């Protein structure tokens, strides 16, 4: 099996929780960016 095709052996529950965590964190990051930008665009 080539190394690049190696799949980490995580449980479905871990994968699900990881995905939820990642989406939540990405939304936070994008939200902060949007707030910084929109605050000034709207104000102007």
């Amino acid at each position, binding site marked *: 099996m080539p190394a690049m095709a190696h799949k980490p052996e995580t449980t479905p529950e871990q994968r699900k929780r990881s995905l939820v*965590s990642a989406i939540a*964190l990405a939304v936070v*990051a994008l939200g*902060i960016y949007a707030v910084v930008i929109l605050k000034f665009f709207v104000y102007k």
Partner: protein
Amino acid sequence: MSTSTHAHDNHGHDAHDHGPPAGFTRWMYTTNHKDIGTMYLWFACFMFFLGGTMALGIRAELFKPGLQFFDPEFFNSLTTVHGLVMVFGAIMPAFVGFANWLVPLQIGATDMAFPRMNNWSFWLLIPAALLLIGSFFVPGGAAASGWTLYPPLIIQQGMSVDMTILAVHLLGASSIMGSINIITTILNLRAPGMTLMRMPLFVWTWLITAYLLIAVMPVLAGAVTMLLTDRHFGTSFFNAAGGGDPTMFLHIFWFFGHPEVYIMILPAFGIISQILPAFARKPLFGYASMVYATASIAILSFIVWGHHMFTVGMPAAGNLFFMYATMLIAVPTGVKVFNWIATMWKGEMTFETPMLFAVGFLSLFTIGGFTGLVLAMVPVDITLHNTYYVVAHFHYVLVSGALFAIIGGVYFWLPKWTGHMYNEGLGKLHFWLSMIGFNVAFFPQHFLGLAGMPRRIPDYALQFAEWNMWSSIGAFLFGFSQLIFVYNVVSTIRSGKKAEQKQWEGADSLEWTHLPTPMPYHTFETPPVLK
């Protein structure tokens, strides 16, 4: 903190363990956290030498008064790109390299939660680096406003600024993806029994650092996006000529910039918290208080940004708030320094190279911390603002702080990573030359700053000549002594005495207690058993 209550035999777990594929594709497509960690570390090493070369250019120019080699505009580009390369290209990627290598190993996970995103996070660094380096070769030369990218100067420069802004966006995206990966991995993929309060300090410091990154990198991205629209799309956010406010950029930038300082130092705290107990042969003193102190420093870092801009004319109440808030950070930092010293107290210490760098870190970072307190005082800062005292202060924090921790960490884990023991004699030589070179380079800069020498100038008054000469001599000694480090690392990778599974007697995290040396390509496919 010891987490290995049961020595689970991991040697036979990898019945289908295999080596990596050979050649370029291994590195291009790899999703293995160890490979990606290695790439981050080599990338950081390259960028460190690139930024270091720029630093030596700066010091060569400042060796004596008058213009020797560069015109002032190019000198300003050197200081700017040196700062950007060292912050975003060397220190941060180096710590992400450590996180990639160590976080899965220390929590008993088989890999990062999102290995493909991990690969992408790394490869985004390459175009960003090319943009930064390439900006020297476009008309007008590289950005010359300092790494802080202050308007209005940055708005008036050529296309190199657009390249820098794009590079910052790419680096920010890479950092955010890396942080999401680290947080997700730590929160979801810990081995059974690895509770949060049993995690090694390095993992804790990275968990907190990753939250800091997610909170502030989008703020920097917002600031530089607005710079871009000011430059090309007719807005005037920061352009006074159009009704904008350059000071607003300072507020937004430093809301990112001060937490960024802790992003560059908290993982160093984590590395030092692993090295000191290992060579003192004692558990880390005050583990829980170290965790809470780290979190306190991170939270406080959000309310101190104004201390970078005491001279812009904030109200006195604002200045006082930022002054006291900044001084408050000394409390949790003091807790950490106390705990490190208490860890060493009555320990059976030996002074191999990682320990030397850790003790060097402890003494010199503390000097940098104290000069930070000096600069936190408003009346003092108004005098010292933009002088070489500030340059000395942050180099004591970032070079003898962050960089010494990185170097100490490499020496500490190199036997585990490579399966070979490094040359101890060369390591000690490297430490002492670095220690002498660093202090000769940067300690006199305190005197220069106190005497009034401004930073970011290619020429200076005669009264500053002598200490500048010493500073340049020290800088060259420090810079060239790093070649010993590269030689030592490369020769350790290629050959050397076989390292033991637990090379350091006092090391007690999972990679030392549960994994053979050298480690198999895939580890912890069966989670370790922790009681």
